[in-house]
């Protein structure tokens, strides 16, 4: 066991740091979502040209071929340096890895490079109004039609849908098959008459997500990932990459939130209040335990190659600690904590989704019980 960076890891970190310092694009322009997105797209292009996208992707697919540890180091440096996230987050974290894992040679050639450069943005179309935790119950229907498929249905909680060129899309291709078997994984082109994107406003007042409505939207055969009817396994891979990709960055986010909370506590002169101290300590401990757990998982993944179900622990911890911290910050902030437009009230309300998005706490606990502890399946 050695938790220090190896020499080459340290060298890698220094390289990242220097490059980011010299090339930091400055703060993201605020207030105009479209401008913000174009800023991030330009920034991704710059990162890509310098070889800093797809850090842990194999070199043959345009990546840097770095280790998962180095990828985590890179993500941490981005977060610590307050560097804007690249525009094509979902393509980099999920879309690309899924194409690498399940795609054909042609798909790899077609899709990977524009993901890395940010030229083609990806979004994810999994959840439906009737299919939340029970993802395999999706109702979107794909029907064979010469040389491709026609898809009709609705998706919710699709981030970046209005900016995306492609959507990782799950649809039912065989209504008669058992529900996990009749699903196919498509790469859907968003810019076509059969696809309508509507913003989905949340309790925060913002419209961070979208709904998409499909009416006979078209997908050519070459945009099926994996086997027809074999989409469930591809979807699971996507979700495991999502959860694994979250780890290191999420920890940095939590640390930031805790730092802000500590600053607020000091500003209010409450640093010697034993109640406050106990809570702060719980957060400090929880976040550190989460960081260490993510590193343990990373070490294990580097041996096995496959992120395991214990990634669910990290998602659970993240939601739990973030909700508790933002709730406490809202309380400590007084009236500002419940006033529209303040950071404290926004984060507080936004965090209510943390125990739902990316797997509800209930589903995460089911996964841990069944797949990590081997308890009998819930009936």
């Amino acid at each position, binding site marked *: 066991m050695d938790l220090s960076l190896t020499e080459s890891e340290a060298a890698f970190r220094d390289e990242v740091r220097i490059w980011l310092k010299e090339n930091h694009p400055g703060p993201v322009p605020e207030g105009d979502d479209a401008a913000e997105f174009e800023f991030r797209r330009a920034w991704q292009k710059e990162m890509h040209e310098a070889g800093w996208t797809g850090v842990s992707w194999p070199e043959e697919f345009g990546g840097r071929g770095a280790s998962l540890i180095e990828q985590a180091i890179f993500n941490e440096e981005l977060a610590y340096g307050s560097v804007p996230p690249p525009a094509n987050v979902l393509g980099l974290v999920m879309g690309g890895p899924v194409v690498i894992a399940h795609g054909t040679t042609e798909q790899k050639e077609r899709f990977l490079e524009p993901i890395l450069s940010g030229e083609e943005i990806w979004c994810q179309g999994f*959840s439906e*109004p009737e299919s*939340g*935790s*029970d993802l395999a*119950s999706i109702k979107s229907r794909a029907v064979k039609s010469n040389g491709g498929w026609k898809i009709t249905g609705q998706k*919710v*909680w699709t981030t970046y849908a209005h900016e995306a060129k492609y959507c990782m899309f799950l649809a039912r291709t065989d209504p008669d098959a058992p529900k996990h078997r009749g699903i196919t994984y498509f790469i859907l082109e968003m810019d076509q008459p059969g696809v309508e994107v509507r913003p*989905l*406003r*949340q*309790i925060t*007042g913002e419209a961070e997500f979208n709904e998409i409505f499909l009416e006979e939207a078209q997908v050519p055969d070459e945009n099926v990932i994996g086997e027809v009817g074999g989409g469930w396994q591809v979807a699971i891979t996507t979700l495991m990459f999502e959860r694994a990709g979250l780890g290191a960055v999420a920890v940095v986010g939590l640390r930031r939130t805790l730092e802000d909370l500590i600053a607020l506590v000091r500003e*209010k002169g*409450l640093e010697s*209040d*034993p*109640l*406050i101290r*106990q*809570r702060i300590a719980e957060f400090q401990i929880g976040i550190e335990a989460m960081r260490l757990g993510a590193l343990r998982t990373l070490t294990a993944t580097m041996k096995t190659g496959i992120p395991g179900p214990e990634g669910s622990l990290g998602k659970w911890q993240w939601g739990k600690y973030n909700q508790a911290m933002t709730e*406490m910050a*809202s*309380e*400590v902030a*007084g*009236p500002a904590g*419940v*006033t*529209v*437009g303040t950071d404290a*009230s926004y984060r507080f*309300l936004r965090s*209510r*989704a943390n*125990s*739902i*998005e990316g797997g*509800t*706490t*209930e589903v995460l*606990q089911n996964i841990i019980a069944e797949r990590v502890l081997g308890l009998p399946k*819930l009936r």
Partner: protein
Amino acid sequence: MNFDLTDEQSEIKGTAKQFMADRFKPEKVRELAEARAYDDSLYAQMAELGWPGIAVSEDDGGQGLGLVELAVLLEEAGYACAPSQLLGSAGAALVITAAGSPEQRAEWLPRLASGEATGAFGAIGPAAGGEDESTLFCDLPTADVAVVFDAEGALLAPAGELDFEAVEAIDATRSYATISAPAGERMPGDAGAGRDRLAVAIAAELTGIGQRAMEMAVEYARERKQFDRAIGSYQAVSHRCAAMLLGVEESRSLTYYAAWAADAEPESLPLAAAMVSARAADAAWETTASALQVFGGIGFTWEHDLQFWLKRSRVAGRMLGTPGEHRDRVAELAGLGAGSAAGAPA
């Protein structure tokens, strides 16, 4: 001993429930919340029914009933999440009744009771938990008169005399403001009793908020299916709902008791009010937040109505201090003596 509403109290509750169900349907609540407005004609109807002055003596132009009667009304107002001036006005009237001079009572109580004027309340300074802190004053931007709690007791101020700034709270079903300094005329009576009675009124509203959120969650849990079963048949959901019931019922028991004590056994009021202030605030917030988890993603959308109860529970539960501050007061009254700090908001 009979811990149940009298027939008259049940009738008042039933009338209020029906009134709210008819006038403050969720789409009406949404319309008013999105406009951040009150419907004055609806408030006039409430005033017609004598609600703002239900606990004001007949001599002062009210109905001469008690705090239990006001509590059941406000429980239903919370249940409906009704945007209205009722809490600010009835709440101010409670304090003026307890603490106001004969002149102050004569000037304001008849007008508040009749609906001719509306009221507001809030606290500033140590009474708000900090040096220069102002709580969010309930209903102040629309009010004619405000009760201002400060370190020494309570002041009564025509709204125009207050230097206030309207605040858009996350709770859009009510208007709020902060003030920059205490102002107004000192009320000579028992401001503590007034504050305690007001606390019970707020708790009653919170009880209703929790009750409704629980009912919404239970109804959804009966109908929503995942993995081919109603989600309410999963213990992760059903035990969550059982915990909501525990919180709401604790809140209700403590509310009715405190309301009864306020009129019948005033020596029990300070502890009863502190207890219910803490419990009702926590129960309402925990219940609405837990209901959001039952709803999942749909509960997080703007188009879903739950948000109004959720946000109102959070803000209403902090009008006279945080649950932590109320608990510190409970500890004091339960035999531990005064705390070293004002109580922490953790």
